[in-house]
């Protein structure tokens, strides 16, 4: 009798453990799929969002991305990133964004779950339904046992991560569009941006150009311009949207440093403050473009020139 009771208790514990650990699959949430990073561009238009191809999570499907949660995550990401002026409901926006989930590949077993997601992003103009962008976006994310021990939770986190990366890539693709930018300029009564061929070098960038430049190139591989090669320790600048900067310099005594950056638009200068870290020097610089891809930060005081190149 005692053995029977013990067996029953063990059985109940086992069932409880299995149910508790596997749990029920839960849907990917809008909060975890949202992207908070500000966009590199901001369009003065409204946009409406549609989502298709999502599936509801159930015992049969496992953790998935639902249309409703994906739409909410997209809308939240657009608002937070300020990519568009506003998000409107019901297809009444200046532009319509349709995101279709075409594939969500999930493993069924493993310590690490890698989820692959593919979506189709279509941006159309609200007035005449002209297609502005059509792009397939692929993303993947791996959740490990460090993220969650329970399999169902780990799977949901992998799905959410893949969706979050997908949204980030899609929004970046829209920010990279030139057509919307020209459209925005003509609507404000301004001429389209001059072509690079019209530029003569060297040219000193205006304050507005400096701000736009660092928004376009948030990561810069630079080196200080001393004549002595061994003193030209290369470093990488990473500029966040909050104008915080990080400097990574593998050959320096202090390999990692963070500081602040301010663009003084009226003075056409960019100023860095690295605190006690001496390399590169804290101070204010003029930004001079010497050819299509090369730039120099020239100190307005005694700061040494910092040189770097960017992609065309």
């Amino acid at each position, binding site marked *: 009798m005692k053995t029977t009771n013990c067996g029953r208790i063990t059985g109940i514990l086992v069932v409880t453990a299995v149910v508790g650990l596997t749990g029920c699959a839960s849907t990917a949430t809008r909060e975890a799929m949202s992207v908070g990073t500000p966009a590199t561009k901001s369009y003065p238009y409204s946009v409406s969002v549609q989502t298709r191809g999502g599936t509801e999570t159930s015992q049969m499907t496992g953790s998935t991305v639902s249309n409703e949660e994906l739409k909410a995550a997209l809308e939240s990401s657009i608002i937070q990133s300020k990519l568009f002026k506003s998000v409107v409901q019901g297809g009444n926006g200046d532009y319509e964004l349709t995101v279709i989930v*075409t594939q969500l590949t999930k493993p069924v077993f493993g310590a690490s779950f890698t989820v692959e997601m593919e979506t189709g992003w279509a941006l159309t103009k609200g007035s005449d*339904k002209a297609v502005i962008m059509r792009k397939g976006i692929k993303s993947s994310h791996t959740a490990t046992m460090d993220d969650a021990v329970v399999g169902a939770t780990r799977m949901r986190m992998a799905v959410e991560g893949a969706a979050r990366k997908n949204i980030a890539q899609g929004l970046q693709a829209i920010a990279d569009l030139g057509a919307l930018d020209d459209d925005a300029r003509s609507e404000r009564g301004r001429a389209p941006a001059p072509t690079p061929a019209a530029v003569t070098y060297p040219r000193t960038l205006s304050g507005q150009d400096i701000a736009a430049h660092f928004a376009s190139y948030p990561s810069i591989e630079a080196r200080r311009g001393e004549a002595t090669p061994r003193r030209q320790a290369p470093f990488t600048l990473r500029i966040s949207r909050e104008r915080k900067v990080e400097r990574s310099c593998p050959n320096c005594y202090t390999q990692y440093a963070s500081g602040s950056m301010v663009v003084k638009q009226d003075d056409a200068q960019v100023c860095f403050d690295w605190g006690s870290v001496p390399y590169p020097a804290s101070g204010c610089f003029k930004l001079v473009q010497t050819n299509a891809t090369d730039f120099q930060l020239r100190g307005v005081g005694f700061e040494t020139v910092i040189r770097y190149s960017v992609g065309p």
Partner: protein
Amino acid sequence: MLLAALAAAATMTTGCAINRATATVDPSVNLGSLKAMHVRKDPKDDNGINVLIAEKLRTRGYNVTTGTEKPPAVDALVTYVDRWRWDITMYMLELTITIRDPRNDYPLASGNSFHTSLARKSPTEMVDEVLANIFREAGK
């Protein structure tokens, strides 16, 4: 021992079975306007799924080629992902077929069928089901 095995199963698996068939079509796309399609063969496919898809599309009136090399002028590129499992015999667990814009790989339409062992279907039936769902969705 039993506890350890069950705990391992609980942490290593997602815990639930999957069985579904879905399709999505870009509302701005008219699949009927497409004439020539190319089914791009998955290099890992040893089961001739590309041929099954091509044959099924031909019965719907499309001019279809298949192989690893894409011909220069087609209206749509068809890709697929097939996943197989073992349960007494090998069976196709999942098939996803995507009809793409050949210029930029944008997915114009996509269908997916997922059937676990007890509800397994033959590859021909899976291809039929996925394409039927895509064209049914496009006809809405």
